[in-house]
């Protein structure tokens, strides 16, 4: 049942997000051309009519990529809300599936799309830099830049990356849990309630992280040690919030569902 739910989550989102992703990649190419024109104009002092608009277009491309990454996420969370807690929920929650399967399918779909959106933004920015800068890119990123980067990877870096990944997943679960709680608890303005709950949860989370970091700074010998302890504690908080958010959401869907 989980596989079927995931398949239909994907089917419901791939059309619009796929199109937006293609647009974002296209915007990357346009941005690269505009950057190339700007650089050519600076190098040759030639007056091309496109030079007048290329800085604005480049700015719009970068703005567009930001909108794409934020908007894509908003679309996914809105789909979660609409499919579960509006009239469409009457179909979703009468499917012969368990609530955890329904929640998990949405979570996995959001995570897959978050990775795709992240990759598309990286590729678009990469296109702007590599195609736009041309040979200049070699000056900014020397040929052995990747090798240097890889050589600098040690246990601490891997730990930090792992903790960041845990926190990213946990954050998605927490947002979904806040949407669930807002939809169940509020009689009106359910999305506004969800935003308020998320704001409150983030404040509590940040306060706890700050307290942990401050207490570590007193006993730690080096800055690196502070960062590692902070990273691990954030990861642990992330896991606790993620697991808590998951079970809270499933409990609310099972026992407190309050469809309009």
């Amino acid at each position, binding site marked *: 049942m989980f596989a079927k739910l995931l398949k239909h989550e994907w089917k419901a989102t791939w059309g619009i997000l796929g199109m937006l992703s293609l647009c974002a990649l296209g915007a990357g190419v346009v941005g690269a051309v505009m950057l190339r024109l700007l650089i050519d104009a600076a190098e040759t002092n030639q007056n091309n009519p496109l030079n007048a608009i290329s800085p604005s277009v480049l700015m719009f491309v970068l703005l567009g990529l930001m909108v794409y990454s934020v908007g894509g996420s908003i679309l996914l969370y809105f789909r979660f809300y609409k499919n579960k807690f509006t009239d469409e929920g009457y179909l979703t*929650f009468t*499917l*012969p599936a368990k609530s955890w399967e329904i929640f998990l399918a949405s979570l996995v779909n959001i995570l897959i799309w978050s990775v795709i959106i992240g990759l598309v933004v990286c590729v678009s920015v990469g296109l702007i830099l590599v195609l736009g800068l041309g040979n200049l890119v070699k000056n900014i990123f020397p040929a052995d830049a990747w090798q240097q980067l890889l050589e600098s990877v040690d246990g601490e870096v891997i730990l930090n990356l792992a903790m960041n990944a845990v926190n990213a997943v946990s954050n998605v679960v927490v947002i979904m849990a806040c949407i669930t709680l807002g939809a169940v608890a509020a009689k009106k303005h359910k999305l506004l309630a969800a935003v308020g709950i998320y704001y409150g949860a983030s404040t509590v989370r940040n306060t706890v992280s700050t307290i942990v970091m401050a207490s570590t700074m007193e006993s730690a010998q080096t800055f690196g040690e502070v960062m590692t302890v902070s990273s691990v504690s954030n990861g642990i908080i992330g896991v606790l919030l993620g697991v808590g958010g998951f079970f809270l959401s499933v409990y609310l869907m*099972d*026992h407190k569902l309050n469809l309009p």
Partner: protein
Amino acid sequence: MDTVLKATGLGKMYGGFAALRSMDLTLPKGEIIGLLGPNGSGKTTFLKLCAGLLTPTTGTLEICGKPVGAESKALVSYLPDRTYLSNRQKIREQLDYFQDFYSDFDRNRAEYMLRDLGISLECRFGTLSKGNREKVQLVLVMSRRAKLYLLDEPIGGVDPAARDYILRTILNNYDPEATVLISTHLIADVEPVLHGYLFLHQGQIVGAGRVKQVREETGKSLDELFREVFRCLPNY
């Protein structure tokens, strides 16, 4: 098993308000039963409990001997009193959806009924008229070979011709092994298709019986009996 639905001491509270009060009910298979009552009598709450959309505050509820949950949902075909399909989806995609999730969904039957209605599978649901949207939902729900059909106000808000179509669809697709529970306050319209009735008032069953028996013993229609019973009740 002859019992399709069994409720024991079933109650549902919304805060301090009792929507259902200690309801005891057993429904046999092979019946079309009208769940009749005024607005706010608990009809929709009861159907939502049976569909697994609400959790009872007190008591137990079983569908074909199974407690309400994922297993019972596979046996229940529920039509809510609102549009619950995605407006953006094509009818074909909605058929795919039902086919994927419900092993008892008869796609050929659904496609036949949609063709009969002149609704193209390539239409987007949101582009259909209100009446056609209601019909499509009913077609999807009635194309399942479920054990229990829960139809919440299936003829509310549609024109008389659409009402006839809907009632005809329920009758034509009615499986003698299944039970159909129809909630409505348009009693005169549904009366010809009903075998039994349940009168609900303030979350309690205040009357139940066979429609044929009412006609034979009292010479009244169900609609007349309903008016008579509810006129005598407090707060009505």
